[in-house]
C-alpha cells in the first residue's frame, strides 16, 4: 500500500526527479560549483552550532568585555576584539545564522509571490495582465533605498523589516521573468491544445504552464540569495536592521566603521568582510553553476 503510493508518486514526478539527478551530477563535475556548495555547507554548519563552537558564546551574543577593547588577533582571540572587547570570531559565527536567514527568507518570500503574479499576468493577459505588469514596473522604478526606509519605519527596524524590504524589491524581477516565459510557453501548440480542450485553468497552469516557465526565475532566485545577503548587510549598516548588540554583520560593520579607524584596527573590518564575501560567493557560485546546467542553450536571454 505504501509501496504503490510511492510508485505512483515516483511515476508522476519521474521527469523532475531525473532532472534533479542530472543537475546534481553536473554540479559535481564543476569545480567552482563544488567550492560554492562546500562554502554554503560550512556556513550553515557554523550557524547551527555557533553556541557550541564559539570560544566566547556570551560575547558572541552581546556581553561586553571592556578590559580587552580593540585588541589585535591573538591566540585568545583569533580575530581580535571589537570596541566592546567582544571576541570577533564568536560574533561572526553568531552572525552567520542571521545573514543566512536574511538571504534565504527574503527570496523564499519573494519567489512564490512574484511567480504567481507573473503566471497570472502571462496566462490571463488582457487588462489584468497589463495592470499587473504596470504595477511591477512601478515597483521596479521605485528607489530601493526609500522603499527599505519606509518599510522599516512602518514595521519597526529589525531583521524582519529587512527581509520584507528585500522581498518587496525582488519580487518584480521574478514576475517579469516568469511573464516572459509564460508568454512563450502559452503560444506553444500543446498549451493551445489544452486550452482548446477546455481543460480547467488550474490544471493547465499546474501541469503545463508552471513547470515550464519557472526556469529563468529559479536561476535568478538561486543567485539572488547572495545578493539578498549583501543588501541585507547594507541595510543593517544604514541602521534599518536589528539593534546592537545583536551580532548582525551589517550592524557590526557599521560599528567597525564608526568607532575606530579601519586602518589601525584592521582586523575588525577585514575578517567581517571576508566572512560576508565568502558566504555570498558560495551562493553565487552555486547559482551560477545551476544556471549553466539548467539553461545550457539559452534562446531568449531577455529579462522580459
Amino acid at each position, binding site marked *: 500500500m505504501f509501496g504503490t503510493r510511492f510508485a505512483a508518486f515516483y511515476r508522476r514526478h519521474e521527469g523532475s526527479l531525473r532532472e534533479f539527478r542530472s543537475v546534481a551530477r553536473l554540479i559535481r563535475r564543476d569545480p567552482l560549483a563544488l567550492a560554492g556548495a562546500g562554502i554554503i555547507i560550512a556556513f550553515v554548519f557554523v550557524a547551527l552550532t555557533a553556541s557550541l563552537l564559539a570560544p566566547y558564546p556570551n560575547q558572541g551574543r552581546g556581553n561586553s568585555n571592556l578590559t580587552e577593547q580593540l585588541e589585535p588577533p591573538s591566540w585568545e582571540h583569533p580575530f581580535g576584539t571589537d570596541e566592546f572587547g567582544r571576541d570577533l570570531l564568536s560574533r561572526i559565527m553568531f552572525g552567520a545564522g542571521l545573514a543566512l536567514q536574511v538571504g534565504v527568507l527574503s527570496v523564499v518570500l519573494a519567489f512564490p509571490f512574484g511567480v504567481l503574479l507573473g503566471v497570472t499576468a502571462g496566462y490571463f493577459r488582457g487588462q489584468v495582465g497589463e495592470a499587473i505588469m504596470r504595477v511591477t514596473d512601478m515597483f521596479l522604478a521605485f528607489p530601493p533605498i526609500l522603499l527599505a526606509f519606509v518599510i522599516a519605519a512602518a514595521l519597526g527596524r529589525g531583521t524582519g523589516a529587512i527581509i520584507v524590504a528585500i522581498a518587496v524589491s525582488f519580487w518584480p524581477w521574478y514576475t517579469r521573468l516568469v511573464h516572459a516565459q509564460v508568454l512563450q510557453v502559452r503560444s506553444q501548440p500543446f498549451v493551445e491544445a489544452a486550452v482548446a480542450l477546455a481543460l480547467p485553468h488550474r490544471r493547465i497552469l499546474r501541469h503545463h504552464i508552471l513547470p515550464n516557465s519557472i526556469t529563468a526565475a529559479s536561476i535568478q532566485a538561486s543567485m539572488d540569495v547572495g545578493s539578498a545577503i549583501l543588501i541585507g548587510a547594507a541595510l543593517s549598516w544604514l541602521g534599518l536592521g536589528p*539593534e*546592537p548588540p545583536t551580532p548582525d554583520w551589517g550592524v557590526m560593520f557599521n560599528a567597525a566603521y*564608526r568607532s575606530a*579607524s579601519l586602518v*589601525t584596527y584592521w582586523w575588525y573590518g577585514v575578517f567581517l568582510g571576508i566572512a560576508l564575501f565568502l558566504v555570498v560567493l558560495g551562493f553565487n557560485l552555486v547559482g551560477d553553476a545551476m544556471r549553466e546546467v539548467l539553461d545550457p542553450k539559452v534562446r531568449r536571454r531577455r529579462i522580459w
Partner: protein
Amino acid sequence: MTASAPAPPRAPVAPRRKPWLVVTVIVAVVLVLSGVAAYFVLFRPPEVRVVTYAVTSEMVTLDPSTEFSNSGLVLSNVYEALTKFDPVAQEPKPWLATSWQSSADGLTWTFSLRQGVKFHDGTPFNATAVKFSIDRTWRMQSGAFFIWFPVNWSHPTPVEVVSEYVVRFHLNYSAPMDWIASAGYGAWIFSPNTPGGSDAGMAEWFEAGHDSGSGPYTLVTEQYSKTRVVFQRSNDYWGGWRAGQFDFAVIRVINDPAQREAAVREGDVDITIDVPVQDLPQLQADPRLKVEIKPSYRTMYAFLNNGRAPTDNASFRRALAYAIPYDDIIASVVSGIGSQPVGIVPAGMWGHDDTLPKFEFNLAKAQQFLAQSPYPTGGVTLKLTYTQDDLFEQQFATLWKEKLAQLGITLNIFGLPWEQQWALAQAGPAGSPDVQDIFVMYWWPTYITPYDFLWNLFHSGSYAFFNLGYYDYPAFDGTIDEASALEASDRATALAKYREAQLMLYNDAAAVGIVDLKNFYVMKSDLRGFKDNAAYPLVVFFYELSR
C-alpha cells in the same frame, strides 16, 4: 571524404587590420600620459590660502533671523552680534557693541556701537541696522527669536535708535541683555538693505546662498550647496587682516567619522571634529596633527518617563540610575572625552555646582531601591529611544542594557532619526502606548544660563516638548522662575535657587546625566590660532586661524 566535392566558394577576404584602431590606441595613450604629466606640473601649491573645515552633517538654512541648526557654523563667520561670549572670562565681551549699561531697575539697556563698520554690501553699520535686524528676527517668530522675549514689544520703541551709534532696549522684566546679545543664534545683525523686499523675500534671498553680514568672510554664492560652503575674505573687515590669515575658507560635509579622520590626516582638510574616539592615542602621537579637547556645554541625558509606570515610581527610577556604569562610559565609550555630570548644568558653565550629589554605579544599591519599588524582582520591559547614528548614545544604551539584565529588567533600545524620536515622544505618557520609557538626548544652551537647561528640560511649560521625562512639579517651576528673574540683579541668590532646583531633580531621580561631552577637534599641526568657544558649539571662527 570531400576530395571530389566542388571547391567551396571563395571565402570573403578577411577585413584588413584597421589602422584607425591602432592609431586611436596610440593617441589615447599619449593623451593620458601627457595629461598625467600636465597634472603634476600644473599642480603647484596654490597661491591662495584656503582653510577647510570638515563637519558632520548638512547645512540647513541661511537666514540669520531663523537659523537654529547646523548652519550656525556658516553664519557665525559671516555675521556678527552685539556681544561675543568669552568662555575664559565667562562673560560677554564687546563685538559690534563697544560698551553698554543698564538702568538701575534693569529695564533699560543702552549699547554704544562700534563705528567704522560696514556690511558686505557697503551699507554702514549703525543703530538703524541693529533695530532692523532684531525687529525682523522678532517678526519672523522662528528659530531662536525667543531670546528677545524680555524686550517690551508693546512699548512704542522697544528697540530704540537713540542716535546713530547708540541703541536702547526697553524691557518687560529685568534680564541680562549683554548675555542675551551674545547668543549663538538669533542675535546676528545684518544689513537693512538686504534685497528681497519683504521678510519672506529676504528669506529667499538668504536661502539662495547670499549673505548681508558684517563678518570677516562672505559667502561665495555660486558655490553654495548643502554639502559645501565656500567663503571669501572680506577685505574691508573692520578688524583688519594680518599675515598668515586665510583668503578662502571651505566648510565641507563628510558624514563618515572615519573619512573625516582620513581627510585631515592624508587629505586637504585642515580641521575637523568627531572622529572615532578610539583613535585618540594615534592622533595625539601623529606629528602632522594637533588634537584639542575642550569643554563644551553639551550634556547627554537619559530622561525617565515620570508620567507612566514603571518609571513613574521614584524608587524604580533610582534603581535604574544606580545601574548605569558611569565610569565604564567615560573610560571606554567616550575614551576620556568627557566626565560624569554633576547636577544638570554642565561643567564649566555658571550654575554648575560640584557639591551636588550624583549617582554612581552600584548594583547592590540598585537592587535595594528595586526592592522598595513595586517591581522587586524586575520582570519589566523598558523601551529606550536614542538618536540614530549617535555612536555614544548607542554604546551607552548597550552597556546599560547589559547591567539592567542582571537586575531582571529587559531594556529594548531603539535608534530612531531625531525627527521620529521626537515626534514619538511628543504624544506624551498618556498619549500613545508606544511612547518611550527612557528618552536619550543631548542638550546645549542657546545662550549661557542655567535657565535654558532647567526650563526646557524640566519645566511644566515645556511638557512633552523638550521636557521629555514629563516632569511636572510646581515647586520646581516656581524655583527656577524666581532664579531667572534674579539673574541680572542678584546673581548669588539666583545661583542658590538653581542649586536647589537641581537638588530637587536629583532627589526625584527625574533624569540622569550620563556624560558631559568635550569637544574633540583634530587639525593639522601647522594651523595656528584655534580657540574653541563652548558658547558657539562646533563653530570654527576662520578669522582667528592662520598658518
